[in-house]
């Protein structure tokens, strides 16, 4: 047991930091953390910071990419799910901006999900839970 207090950030790995800054800042419209430097840009989603990290930086001591058996950039196939008020509306806006989606929007029975990719191929989800939880609370 460790005393986990929160998630400070999730790392988004990129091959092109400038392109990622444009995507997360302009295409998705996430506010940039004003305390973040250009070599470590951070974007805020309301509850979680997304830190953009160039994959070459993962070779640094603290990340040791090779120990995880990777020698080349591999995009993440495990998505970060962004809550939006309306999945179809958000999807249309992103498609107009040229963003590639993976398949049709999915209805799980409690939520809508649409899987898309950032310019590096990392998967993200547009997500909206429309059903209350079992205990009656709503997201």
């Amino acid at each position, binding site marked *: *047991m460790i005393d986990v207090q*929160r998630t400070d950030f999730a790392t988004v790995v990129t091959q092109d930091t400038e392109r990622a800054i444009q995507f997360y800042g302009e295409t998705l419209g996430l506010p940039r953390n004003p305390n973040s430097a250009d070599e470590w840009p951070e974007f805020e989603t309301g509850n979680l910071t997304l830190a953009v990290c160039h994959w070459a930086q993962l070779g640094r001591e603290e990340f040791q990419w090779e120990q995880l058996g990777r020698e080349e950039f591999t995009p993440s196939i495990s998505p970060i799910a962004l809550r939006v008020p309306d999945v179809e509306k958000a999807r249309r806006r992103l498609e107009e901006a040229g963003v590639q989606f993976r398949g049709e929007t999915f209805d799980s029975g409690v939520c809508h999900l649409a899987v898309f990719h950032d310019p590096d191929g990392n998967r993200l989800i547009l997500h909206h839970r429309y059903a209350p939880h079992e205990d009656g609370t709503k997201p």
Partner: protein
Amino acid sequence: MIDAQRVDFIAVPVQDRERAAKFYEETLGLPRNPNSTETWIEFETGNVTLALVDPPSAGQAFVPLPSGSIVIRVPDVETAKARLQEAGVALIAETWDSGVCNGASFVDSEGNGFAVHHRYAPYSDGTTP
């Protein structure tokens, strides 16, 4: 612009759902979301939900999250690091110090990279985490 309101969850790929659930619940001590089901298990970190996903069940190959993907805040990195090592969790890098924060990188039971992290310095505007 898509009016993003928050991150609802981060998907954590697993190879063995039960083993991973034990790791997140017992080794990290995260509370399990009571609304979880047998096939959709969620853990809470305070500000964001971690959802275990099983790529092979969706016909996809398992690919672990790269190192440092999920960075969790702890009050003291050395204490957390010692506890994780006692529990047999694989340390992949010694404690680093960036000048404003320190941290240590590990992999979970499935091979996903995560780190324990503590920012000790205030931000440039004087606020502290």
